[in-house]
């Protein structure tokens, strides 16, 4: 039991929440007009529509004893501002972001795209990206290993 209170075994993730507003239209050239309407419904409206997106980013790493921090917020904020917010805020995802001229700008794809933009943050390890498209819809991605997490966790628990 003593080992269970050893704080070296603890992991800490620091989360920061950001906001951006953007428009999009869900439409793919791989489907007919009719099929697009069927699959995407009102999200296929040719003039697009928009959301106030909420982006949550988490990072992990050792807490620096001198600062009490995993990463200095000024560094994280600056990186996210440049890598993501400047690119997406008050933009049309379809028209203004090269990646979404091919890919459908669903929030699933947006999560993956933003994860890729942030994964090279040098001051801490990017853990996950979570996006609220609206208060009622949220999406999360933690890299290619994400899908394996539940399996690995279940196995670990059984060993205990």
């Amino acid at each position, binding site marked *: 039991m003593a080992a*269970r*209170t050893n*704080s070296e*075994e*603890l*992991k*800490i*993730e*620091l*989360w*920061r*929440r*950001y906001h951006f507003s953007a428009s999009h239209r869900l439409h793919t050239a791989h489907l007919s007009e009719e099929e697009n309407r069927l699959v995407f419904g009102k999200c296929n409206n040719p003039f697009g529509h928009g959301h106030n997106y909420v982006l949550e980013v*988490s990072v992990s790493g050792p*807490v620096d*004893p*001198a*600062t*009490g*921090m*995993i990463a*200095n*917020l*000024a560094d994280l904020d600056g990186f996210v501002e440049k890598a993501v917010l400047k690119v997406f805020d008050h933009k049309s995802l379809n028209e203004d972001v090269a990646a979404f001229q091919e890919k459908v700008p669903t929030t699933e794809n947006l999560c993956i795209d933003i994860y890729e933009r942030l994964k090279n943050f040098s001051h801490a390890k990017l853990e996950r990206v979570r996006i609220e498209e609206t208060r009622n819809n949220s999406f999360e991605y933690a890299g290619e290993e994400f899908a394996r*997490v*539940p399996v690995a*966790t*279940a196995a*670990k*628990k059984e060993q205990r």
Partner: protein
Amino acid sequence: MVLITRRIEFSASHVYHNPQLSAEENRRIFGKCNNPHGHGHNYTLEVTVAGEPDPVTGMVLDLKELKGILEREVMQRMDHRHLNHEVPELAGQIPTCENIARVIWNLLEPKIKQGALHHVRLYESPDLFADCFRNGSAGSRGSI
């Protein structure tokens, strides 16, 4: 396994200052959090306990009991306090979200006798928070 979560709120003041650094370095690293007179936040703490529901009571842990533990271990220690000066567990540490979350984990874990502490999430504001959990668990993502 079922996860149960209780949320509490407390208000406290703090200042970020490392006496081993120069005044200028403190200002550069900590910015406005280095204001010597301190400042405060309304913290929100979410505490999640994991376990199997008891077959008789249907509960992982009686939330009344968890409420009592949080009152004794967190509220009485931290609510309306200055975290630098009045919380011995934080002495010598910068009272960041990361450090406070870890201190709270260490206070709570031994007190939870039914089920097991699964994770602690501490919000300093709606836009800044930290999760603390045992390395190798699914952490804040629960058992998904």
